[in-house]
Structures are given as C-alpha cells and as structure tokens.
C-alpha cells in the first residue's frame, strides 16, 4: 500500500498539490493567503539559490542581492517611469541575471570560501550604494506604496499570479537540472579537476548556472514587490542571504524540493512564533542546532532516505 503511494506518477502528485493550492484562497482567510504568497516567493528564491549551492557546489553567500536587485528594478520601473508593468516584470530578472553574470565573472576565478567572501564584498557594495543613494532608491527608507497594477493588486489575484509563475519556474528548473547541463553541473560540483581534464569548461558552466539562478532570484524579487508593495535595503543585506542559505540546508540541499520546504518552515516560523514571542530567532537558532545534530541531510533529505529504506525493505520481501 505504502509502496503504491510513493510509486505513483510524480506528475499526478504535483498536479494534485497544485489543484489543492489553487483551491486554498476560496476557503482560507486573507492573512493566510498572504503568508502562502510570501512562502511561494521565498521558496522560489531558495530554489534558485539551490541551483548554485546544492547542484553547482558554489558558496553563493550573497544571493539576497539578486533578489533585491529584482525587487528594486520592478519598484523603480513602477514608480519612476510610466512604462507598462510587464516591462518591469521582464526587466527585473534580466537585470538580476546581468548583475549575477558580472559578479560571477569575478567570483568564479576563486573557489569555496574565497568565492563566498568576494561575493559578499561585491554584494555589500551594491547594498551600500542602495542604502545611501537617496535620490534613486530612497536610501535606508526604501520605496513604499508602489503602485501594483490593478489585475494583481488583490491578495487572491496576486496569489494566483505568483502560484502560476512559481509553477512555471519550478518546471523550468526541473528540466534544467535533469538536462545534460544539470548533470555536467553536478559533475563539476563533485570533481572540478577531473571535469577540467575531460574537457568540460568548468567556469563557463558555473557562470551559466549563476546566471540562471540569479535570473530566478530577480523574478522572486519582483514577486516580493507584488506581495508587499514596498522595497527596502534589507532585501540586499547579507543577513537575508544567509537566511536563504539556511533554508536550503534546512530543507535538504541535495534534493529538488527541499528548499521549498525550508522556505515554508522559516517563513511560517517567523510569522507564527513571532506572534507569541519577540524571541523567534532564538527558537530558530535552537531548531537549527537540533537539525544539525539530528538531521544533517535536511528535512527533505531525511524523508527521502526513509522512503528509500522502506522501498528497499519492501522489495527485499
């Protein structure tokens, strides 16, 4: 019986989850729909990070910057220009991807911790500029009351818009990761020297992965504007980047859907624990430590390992 459930066509399972999620705004109060939208946006961000961290093996320590660039791009298009909104939605991921490529060009010359450190300094440079350039970005206040186009202004409409885009993005990511490119990327992660030796251009593959990931991060940033209607420099700050990093590790960074779970756990924790106590980061810290000690593969990794065990014992019988 259990085997029958786990062996069902994953396509059907996904479709079922989607139908379920699409029905939720009909029954849930508005606040929960808003929280779900926020989870979707954060999940897209975490998934995009996992492309480079989990599958590419690069220490992308400052991914939040690209999220912030996407958010600021859309916000600036909507507030400072009279261009139609779709241009903003198109420009956000493209600008992020360009920034990702430029920063990546510097970073891929280095490895591991040095890669991460250089990225943090380049990212902090962008944060510092946004933090101080009052004329353009509103400085430390950010930009508030961004006019969201009418057709996605209501909470349930924006929910469907975000769910739609999230579905498309996740499908594209799935296809990318299961393409020859995805396999090569994982090969580069596991043994860059050998890849270099058999003629794979390591840096090129890393750069493409970074560009793709930052593209999706920028899209997630523009969706954040749809949900919140404001942008602020904290979106570009390194604390957010580390938080997203944690989501990947928490959910399980060697699994496909792990980061979604990690994002959901952290956003939900912040929202619901934050209601009861102002010390929610203390609770997050304790949960993280428990996780490190007991579930080092992440929640999803743990679940997948369990399912695999069950299957193996079932077939042995």
């Amino acid at each position: 019986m259990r085997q029958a459930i786990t062996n069902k066509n994953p396509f059907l399972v996904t479709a079922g989850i989607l139908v379920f999620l699409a029905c939720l705004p009909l029954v849930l109060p508005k606040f929960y729909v808003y929280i779900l939208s926020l989870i979707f946006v954060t999940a897209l961000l975490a998934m995009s990070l996992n492309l480079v961290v989990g599958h590419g093996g690069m220490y992308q320590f400052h991914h939040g910057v690209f999220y912030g660039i996407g958010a600021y791009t859309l916000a600036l298009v909507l507030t400072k220009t009279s261009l139609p909104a779709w241009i903003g939605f198109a420009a956000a991921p493209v600008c992020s991807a360009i920034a990702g490529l430029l920063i990546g060009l510097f970073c891929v010359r280095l490895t591991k911790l040095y890669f991460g450190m250089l990225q943090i300094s380049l990212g902090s440079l962008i944060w510092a500029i946004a933090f101080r350039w009052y004329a353009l970005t509103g400085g430390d206040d950010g930009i508030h009351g961004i006019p969201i186009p009418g057709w996605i202004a209501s909470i349930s409409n924006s929910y469907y818009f975000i769910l739609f885009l999230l579905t498309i993005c996740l499908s594209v990511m799935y296809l990318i990761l299961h393409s020859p490119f995805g396999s090569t990327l994982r090969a580069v992660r596991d043994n860059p020297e050998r890849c270099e030796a058999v003629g794979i251009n390591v840096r090129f593959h890393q750069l493409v992965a970074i560009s793709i990931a930052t593209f999706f991060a920028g899209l997630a940033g523009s969706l954040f504007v749809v949900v919140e209607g404001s942008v602020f420099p904290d979106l570009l700050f390194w604390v957010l980047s580390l938080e997203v990093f944690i989501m990947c590790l928490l959910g399980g960074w060697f699994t496909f859907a792990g980061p979604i779970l990690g994002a959901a756990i952290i956003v939900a924790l912040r929202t619901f624990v934050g209601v009861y106590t102002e010390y929610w980061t203390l609770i997050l810290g304790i949960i993280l430590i428990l996780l490190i000690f007991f579930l080092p593969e992440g929640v999803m990794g743990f679940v997948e390992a369990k399912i695999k065990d069950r299957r193996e014992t079932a077939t042995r019988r």
Partner: protein
Amino acid sequence: MEWSESISIAALGSHLLVGLSRAMILFIVTSGLSFVLGVLRVPNVAHGSLYMIGAFAAFSIVNALGGGAPGFWAALVFAPLIVAGVSLVAERALFCHLYEREHLMLLLFTFALMLILGDLVKMVWGADYRSIMAPEFLRGSLPVFGSPFPKYNLFLLIVGPVVAVGLWLFSTRTRIGKIARAAAVDREMVGAVGINVSWVFAFAFVLGCFLAGLGGALVAPTVSVTLGMDHDIIIEAFLIVTIGGLGNMWGAMVGSLIFGITQSFGVLFWPQFAIVFPYAAVVIVLTLRPKGLLKSVW
C-alpha cells in the same frame, strides 16, 4: 556628488588618525576571527555576537562600579573573560561534537549560535541604546596636526599594537601557541604526536572569542552600544580576514588598516557614499590578489 571643498593637510591627518584608531578596534576583533579560522577552519559567524556581548558586559561592569577609572579597567579585563566563558560553554557543550562534519554545517552552527546569542542579549540587556563614558583621564582631546583629537582614540592607537605584539609573542614563543599554529597547518600530525587536538581547538576558539570580547569592551565608550552591532562588525571582519589572507594575523592587521583608513577617507572625500569605499577597496584587493595580500595558512 558633493566633493568637500579645500581638503587641508590637517583634515587629512586627523582623518588618518581616526581611521587608524578604527583599524585598531577592527584588528583586535578580526585577529580573533582569523585565529579561529586558521586553527579550526571555521568561519565563526557568531564572532560579531560575542563582540556585542563584550560591549554590553563592559557597560554593565562600568555601571556596577560607578563609572570611574576602576570600572573601566575592570570592564577591559572582565568583559572579555565573560565572553570567553560563554564561548567555552558553547564550544564544549555543542561545537566540539561537530568538528568531523561538513564545513557548511559548522558555518550553519555558528549562524545558529549568532541567532541565539543575539536574542539572549536582547533578553538580558533589552533593546535600548546604551552608552558608557571613558574614564576621566581619557576624556577630552589633544591637539594633533592643529586639530583636536580625542584622547580615547590615541589610547586605542596604543592598545592595538600592544595586542598585536602580545598575540605574536604568544603564538611564536609559547608552547600552546606553537601547538595551535601547528594544528592550523596539519591537524592530523598534531594528533599523531599525542596532543589532544580537541582541547587545542577549544583553546583557540576561546582565545579568538576573548579577543572579540576585548574589541567589544574597547569600542563601547566610542559608540552607542545596541543590538545590531553584531551584524555590522561581522561582515567587516570577514572581509578583512579575506583580504589579509585567511588565518594570517598580520594579514588581519593589514586588512584592518585598509578597511579603517578607506572608511575614514571616504567620510572626508564623499560623505554620502563613505560606506561604499571599504567594500570597493576589498573588491580591488581580491581582484588583484584573489587569495589575500599575505600568505594564508590554509
């Protein structure tokens, strides 16, 4: 763009001194981070939180002892010791069980520690802004280059090099310092000759955190002590360690000088974007010397 008009030599000189004294604080904090990074190979994200605890502890000690010179000296001694105690507990209770794990997991652990310590500070000291006064003989200013220069900053200019020399003597002249340096280079060999590597790590971690606490106690009279200090310092400390060369103490000194001086000259030349300058300097250094200016112990 608002370039300051007529930058005089005196202004340059006094900004240089401000930058240097800032660099001394950065050096004391960063050398601790660098020491931990060199020996344990762990980027300790919680280092900034320990610095913050040092500053808050100094505040409490100074207030408890009535704000005079004895309170200040007591704070300089006991605040770092309190921080060292906290780190010893964290290390022996939790961290020491993780050394065999993946690198990112250690990073994750220190991040969790940062979250926990940040909230504990909020619980103990609250979210208010605090400030303490330097003792009587370090208040006021002396004329340097024709413009007044705070005495406390001159004091920092003395303390910084003293700590640097002390740390250098410690790591080259004492047995435990030599063992720690050896563990940084080849930990398996150190274990093979019969030294308890776990305790060497504990010692290095606690010493690094002690320096964070000392930095916090020293910075307390010059800034408002508040939550969020940890976030500000840790990223600077990491960048300094990286441009200096991971685990290299003199690299931490060079990096701190670059960071402190570009910061204060940024204030002089282009105040609005002053915070951009040090990051730009880091980018330039890492572009030219990807592995840092001095030799890394990794």
